[in-house]
């Protein structure tokens, strides 16, 4: 396959990864925790759309709103019930809980909706254009556009708004921020809300891109999102996009020139490699630990 086609493919992949990584990196940057369940919230969003359109006949636009609503409520709920009580606990406990939440979402979805994949509604179909032998996927174009817009919006919120100021304060030093009168709990809940909203949008585009969604569809995107976020520097919003595109390119080239079956192993190996060489990612900052 030609280099250009492979490149195009990589960008196609990267568009989705960047979007998924955005929510992930945001939550990590501010709440300082890896929300293992992020991928599963993506799945929830996508499934909500599928079920509401196919089973309840809700209109596509409304289903998107519904999906955002469901994801945001879910994210905030999870934070309140499972993560907040463990704020003072060791990170090990939080991690284990996050895994528990992830499993909970997957298996609840499976019990409610069965383990088979479900077809994503045709209403969301976006055509693919063949231009000069390349496949220009309309849906990836849209994904990239939306991701770019979201990124701009996010950067604006985080760096230009009062809420964003509070977020950055909490991210830097939670206790001091609280001393300064910031309600850290509210800030963190807000962070999860935004992150989950991003996840639901990611779910929409995931469904459009791949055509089918099932209860376990979220776990691989979750890991890839983490990889993308780490590649670009976790906690950095633009880094998520850079990381996503980079990951897409790596995966595409690996599939084309090395082996399509081993591509995932290669991606994981890249993750380990990056963490080994530059643990804070390409655009991340050095963390100095004070005793």
């Amino acid at each position, binding site marked *: 396959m030609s280099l250009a086609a492979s490149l195009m493919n990589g960008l196609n992949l990267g568009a989705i990864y960047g979007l998924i990584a955005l929510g992930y990196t945001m939550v990590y940057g501010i709440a300082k925790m890896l929300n293992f369940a992020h991928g599963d919230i993506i799945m929830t969003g996508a499934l909500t759309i599928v079920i509401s359109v196919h089973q309840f006949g809700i209109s596509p636009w409304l289903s998107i709103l519904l999906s955002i609503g469901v994801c945001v409520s879910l994210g905030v709920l999870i934070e309140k019930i499972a993560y907040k009580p*463990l704020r003072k606990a060791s990170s090990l406990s939080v991690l284990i809980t996050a895994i528990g939440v992830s499993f909970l979402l997957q298996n609840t979805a499976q019990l409610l909706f069965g383990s088979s994949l479900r077809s994503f509604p045709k209403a969301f179909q976006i055509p693919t254009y063949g231009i000069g032998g390349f496949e220009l996927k309309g849906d990836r174009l849209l994904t990239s556009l939306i991701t770019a817009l979201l990124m701009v919006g996010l950067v604006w919120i985080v760096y230009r708004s009062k809420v964003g100021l509070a977020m950055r304060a909490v991210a830097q030093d939670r206790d001091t921020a609280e001393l300064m009168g910031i309600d850290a709990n509210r800030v963190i809940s807000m962070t999860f809300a935004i992150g989950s909203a991003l996840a639901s949008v990611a779910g929409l585009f995931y469904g459009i891109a791949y055509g089918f969604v099932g209860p376990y569809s979220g776990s691989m995107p979750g890991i890839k999102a983490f990889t993308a976020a780490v590649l670009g520097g976790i906690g950095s919003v633009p880094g998520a996009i850079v990381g996503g595109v980079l990951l897409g390119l790596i995966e595409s080239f690996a599939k084309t020139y090395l082996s399509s079956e081993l591509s995932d192993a290669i991606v994981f190996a890249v993750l380990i490699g990056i963490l080994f060489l530059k643990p804070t990612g390409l655009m991340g900052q050095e963390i100095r630990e004070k005793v």
Partner: protein
Amino acid sequence: MLKISKQRKRWFAWLLLSGVYIVIMLLMQEKMLSRHAQSLLVPLCINIILALSLNIVVGMLGELSLGHAGFMSIGAYAGGVFSLQTQDYLPPLLRYPLAILLGALVAGVFAGVLSIPVFRLKGDYLAIVTLAFGEIIRSLIINFAWSGGAAGLKGTPRDTTFTTAYLLTVLVWMISQKIYGSRLGLEMRAVRDNAIAAEACGIDVMNRKRAGFIMAAAIAGTAGVLYSHYYTILTAGVFDYNRSIEILVMVVLGGMGSMFGSVVSAITLTIAPEALRFLNDYRMLIYSLLLITAMLARQSRIFDSLKQRLKEVKRPHGATE
């Protein structure tokens, strides 16, 4: 409290261990053990070994390893391939222990290699890297012919019996106890509780973490050999992320760091799903709920006991209140 001497305690433990074995063997002889119960004996031992091994990493070191099943599979394949290659010219009495040692060795080597990048990282990252490792191993196994590919490794000699499994389990238990009580164990726990303070005390943190990780992996490898020589077939799908989580649940529920707890919860979580087969649909759901509630409960308990201790500290000085 009865003052039982250490000698007495040890003697009692030996009695208990051999007693359990004899009882089970007798039941089997007299055909009083249902076929179903019999089929669980070896898996029970395997799970106990796995739980004990993960406990070293999660309980003693305080790190989350999500790819532990990967070490089990490495050991299983290493031992399996060895047995298959040598089954024509080595007697089982020699071949089987060698297979077990090889499984432990290869798993340990892999852990050693992995620990180089892994322990540069902190909690979250470490967990993800171990997850990535588990998936890489699975991918390699599926894709390469020597491991039988998708169809798996078939026809490993059936060397594992309840007796051998039980012996290995007791051995692992003894080793774990030794580690726990040794200076190494103490240092590992110090690293878990406060790595910076431990380093300030002169403990080589990186080294200790590596040591614990490698030992845990080697033990998991032996469990893998037990597995492959009992079920005589190995497929990559058996040692996946879900498996790693199942072992994690055992360790967490048993109380992280508690050896006895790991054993008990391994027994419970091996028998319960089989005894309660009608709940199979909900099994993973129940596990996830158990994980979450265990973490939440643990958290509040620490708070409670802290509060209590604070109260008790105040009272003696409260004479003037």
